[in-house]
């Protein structure tokens, strides 16, 4: 299973294994990673699973849909490398990916 490192706003790293096919959001929820709320459960309707993806990884991800961009507009402090973690699906190519969680989700 690919390893994902979630890095909190304070810099605390948490590396967990997440099964291929799950989303980065689900990986966080199942492993009790703080900093990702996912209120709507992954329907791209709440922007509370907002994360920042370091440039090196950001470019490897599939481009976000318009609907995801629209939701990111609502997120807490969105940046250029913002994504909704419910829309990032774990694949073998993402082995070792780092995900930065924001200061807060709302």
């Amino acid at each position, binding site marked *: 299973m690919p390893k994902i490192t979630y890095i909190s706003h304070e810099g605390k790293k948490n590396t967990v294994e997440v099964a291929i096919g799950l989303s980065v959001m689900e990986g966080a929820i199942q492993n009790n990673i703080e900093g990702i709320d996912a209120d709507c459960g992954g329907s791209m309707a709440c922007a509370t699973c907002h994360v920042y993806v370091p440039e090196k990884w950001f470019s490897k991800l599939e481009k976000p849909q318009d609907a995801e961009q629209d939701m990111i*507009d609502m997120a807490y402090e*969105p940046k250029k490398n913002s994504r909704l973690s419910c829309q990032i699906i774990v694949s073998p190519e993402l082995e070792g990916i780092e995900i930065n969680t924001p200061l807060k989700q709302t």
Partner: protein
Amino acid sequence: MIKTDAIIIGAGPTGLFAVHQLGIIGLKCEVIDNLDRAGGQCIELYPDKPIYDIPGIPECTGGQLTEGLLKQIKPFKNNFHLGQRVEEIKQENNTWIVKTNSGNLFTAPNIIIAGGVGSFEPRKLSLKEAEKFEGKQILYSITNKDIFKNKKLSIFGGGDSALDWALELSKSNEITLIHRRNEFRGAAHTLSEIKKKEKEGKLIVKTPYNLKSIVGDQSMSEIEIEHEDGKVEKIKTDYILSFFGLIMKLGPIADWGLNINNKTIPVNTESFQTNKEGIFAVGDICTYPGKLKLILSGFHEAALAARACFKRARPNETYRFEFTTASKSIHDRLGLKK
């Protein structure tokens, strides 16, 4: 004080179907919701998005589903108490007393919490100094636009609310519309109107910019916005209007003495009762092994919770299971003519 058989907190699809399930077994209920209309997440988050997993309905939008549920519960003539949030729940003998933030009081032997992820609230600006201006010079909703007379307004957001208000207020005010990216999300007609007004100099559009700081100690005089590339601009501003949609907050539910686990309420799967006798939780807000946050699961949960409510509402009667196809008493409750 309104007396009923069950108080339903939350008018989303699960809460609405709970009205139906209570209704066909002959129980009355009152429905309370913080939003000013029924439908919950369906109407607030995805009114126009299609849903494909409602049994028997191959495709419908959140809006259509809400409409259908409201039609389905019409025969039961329940009351809705919208635009108010339940603040307090307390127990008196064997009944519950519920108080809303509008001061309304309800009493019933049963409460069904169908509160989704909590109540919707406007998403606030992330800037620290924003707090002291909130409700004064920073507004998340507009109730009286007369206060803006001769004022300079900075509107933040990229969706319909931001665009619609920018257009409306540009008739009478100096408006700067600020958004974090170049693309706006709005009806095509609205977007072309914005472009037109911008060309005519009746509206200033600043993208891709974010709010950087607010200038002013007691009162705001100016704001600083920052371009994606780091360039900072100052804009004279009397009011910030911020439209970043709604968020869901568990709110007062957390204070009612219920067991809460990760913002959800553990229930048993026989009756969907919580740790408090007579308080049930259904839909997204409840949790149990295997829980799926699906509307269809909420319907099942509401059906079982309603039957459990019967025992407390009619302790001296025996509940008899009946089918809607065959039961004369259900047909009477539905107001069907013979």
